[in-house]
């Protein structure tokens, strides 16, 4: 779950991070008022995508008139398909230096790692690729937490200026504490700014919360913003289905993430484009199958449906019943290619035998090539 900049800053403030005193504004007059109180401000679009600045969503306003005008431009702006509904207005900073600070999952290290770089204010992935030596990386022992000596290792290795070195322990310890308490997979400040009068301030903040931890982060539920999600993906999350929207014409359902990914790959190999990924999981009952089919079929681009089941604990007859129920309640006008192998495969095939519009397939490969053919011919 991604948090907005203003939400991340609000949370990090509680962990002692130096966060600007900003205000969220929903209208140009509100931005004007904020500027009247703060002096020159920076007005920042609050949308859950990167590259807001490049898209013109981050601008400085020197006075209330400008603030109102700029807010008027940014609010309602489209940034990468998202409409800006709110802006964060903060006192403008005189920036002398920009640092990168972040904590994230380090898969290869089997731990969380802290990264610091004097090359702040730019895309850290680019820095990692082009000049990795500029990034100090510290692997954090999960049982010990982030130790002070590690903070020192990081700041001296990154070659940071004295103001940052002095402020670093509190900032980094606070960031890591927040990261663990909030079950984050990413918590970064980019840039951590040093102002011309020597203050160290978190000018931006990004936090991503581990989806698997949402069950114990109920306080964060109010921050949930699904407006940036694809509507079908958001719906799928609500009903507990693993679904990813793609852009082809072959609707795909299967049991098991690796198997479904492979089904997508097979459809592509057969010359057609997958429309989605949908994993019904293990042991799914008929109603899950029906709900999944309903979700897939909400996509008007789909011209054929491919259902690929290799049943271990998933029973083929349950899946077949789910397909039958879906055919009753939804008006399915496109061909369905169904491959049922495994537990109760005979019962499942019997349930669907002779059904109009259903083409059985014996293997996943066969299902994919049949679906690809039907996708283009429509019959």
């Amino acid at each position, binding site marked *: 779950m991604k948090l907005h900049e203003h939400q991340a800053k609000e949370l990090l403030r509680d962990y002692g991070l130096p966060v600007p005193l900003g205000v969220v504004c929903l209208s140009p007059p509100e931005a004007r008022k904020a500027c009247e109180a703060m002096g020159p401000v920076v007005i920042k679009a609050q949308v859950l995508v990167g590259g807001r600045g490049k898209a013109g969503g981050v601008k400085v306003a020197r006075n209330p008139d400008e603030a109102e005008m700029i807010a008027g431009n940014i609010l309602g702006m489209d940034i990468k398909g998202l409409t800006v509904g709110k802006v964060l207005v903060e006192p403008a900073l005189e920036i002398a230096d920009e640092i990168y600070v972040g904590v994230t*999952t380090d*898969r*290869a290290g*089997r*731990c*969380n790692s802290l990264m610091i770089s004097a090359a702040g204010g730019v895309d850290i*992935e680019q820095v990692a*690729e082009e000049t990795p030596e500029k990034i100090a990386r510290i692997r954090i*022992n*999960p*049982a010990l937490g982030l130790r002070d000596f590690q903070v020192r290792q990081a700041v001296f290795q990154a070659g940071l200026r004295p103001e940052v070195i002095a402020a670093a322990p509190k900032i980094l310890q606070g960031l890591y504490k927040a990261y*663990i308490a909030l*079950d984050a*997979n990413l918590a970064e400040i980019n840039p951590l700014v040093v102002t011309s009068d020597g203050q160290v301030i978190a000018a931006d903040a990004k936090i991503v919360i*581990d*989806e*698997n*931890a949402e*069950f*114990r982060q109920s306080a964060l539920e109010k921050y949930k913003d699904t407006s940036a999600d694809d509507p079908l993906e958001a719906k799928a999350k609500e009903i507990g289905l*693993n679904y*990813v929207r*793609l852009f082809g014409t072959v609707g795909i359902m*299967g*049991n*098991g*993430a*690796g*198997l*479904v*990914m*492979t089904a*997508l*790959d*097979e*459809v*592509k*190999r057969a010359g057609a484009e*997958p429309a989605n*990924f949908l*994993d019904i999981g*293990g042991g799914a009952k008929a109603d899950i199958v029906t709900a999944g089919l309903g979700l897939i079929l909400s996509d008007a681009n789909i011209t054929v449906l491919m259902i690929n089941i*290799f049943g*271990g*604990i*998933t029973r083929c007859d349950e899946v077949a019943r789910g397909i039958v129920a879906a055919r009753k309640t939804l008006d399915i006008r496109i061909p369905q290619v169904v491959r049922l*192998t*495994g*537990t109760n495969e005979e019962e499942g095939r019997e349930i669907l035998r002779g059904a109009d519009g259903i083409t059985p397939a014996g*293997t*996943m*490969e066969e299902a994919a090539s049949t679906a690809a053919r039907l996708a283009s011919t429509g019959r």
Partner: protein
Amino acid sequence: MSILIDQNTRVVVQGITGREGEFHARQMLAYGTKVVAGVTPGKGGQSAADGVPVFNTVREAVSATEAGAACIFVPPRAAPDAALEALDANLPIVVLITEGIPTNDMILVVNEYRKSSSRLIGGNCPGVISPGKSKIGIMPGQIHKPGRIGLVSRSGTLTYEIVKLLTDEGIGQSTVVGIGGDPIPGTTFIDVLPLFEADDETDAVVLVGEIGGSDEEDAMEFVKTMSKPVIGFISGRTAPPGKRMGHAGAIISGKSGTPQAKVDALNAAGVRVADTIRDIPGFVREALDRK
């Protein structure tokens, strides 16, 4: 020999009185696995899954039955603790079936295991099976056939598909290890491959990977030193970047975890990579014939 488990492995099922635990304990028993104990706190003294004694704690279960392995069917909230409890009882093999465990919990658990001589497999995995000897997990035993091919995979049902293709071609399996789909697994490719290399009942290995992370790539230095052939398959070639494809660990992040990087790394290490799973049995045969 097979690796990790065999006909003598004695298993304690944590969460045996839950729906999943009971069902799969029965399935394991039916396959011939020595399920000697179950653990559900508060239900000690009862029996589950047709006569398996239930204990309150793992230590009690191990003390009473000399169990040497655990299989955990406990919901995500309590699963990390269950895994640590199994570690505390010094069980050499622990299979963590549970999906949905928070990553930071797994980091803690995996790091504790790595300091010990116990091996954690999973979370979010189907388990381990040495066909004809024992299965610890949820895989359908009947599609497997005893033989001499080792398999190590991040997938569940995709692994079953590949196993069935091999079995149908008369190519049996020594041990099939499902390491699971999570980003921080207890055991990964680099941990399993040396076991297959040293196993006198394994002649070749099939490695099934997917998008996300770099565990496939990180295993290639070792693969280059192996005397036994490795055949590979990578799923998720059509996955878009930045999207989690079902498995918590199946996500392409920027330039990291792409399918092409994995295929390239496998090829560079001399692994023959199948573009479709149907080619895997043939590739295995050819690799064995070449030896």
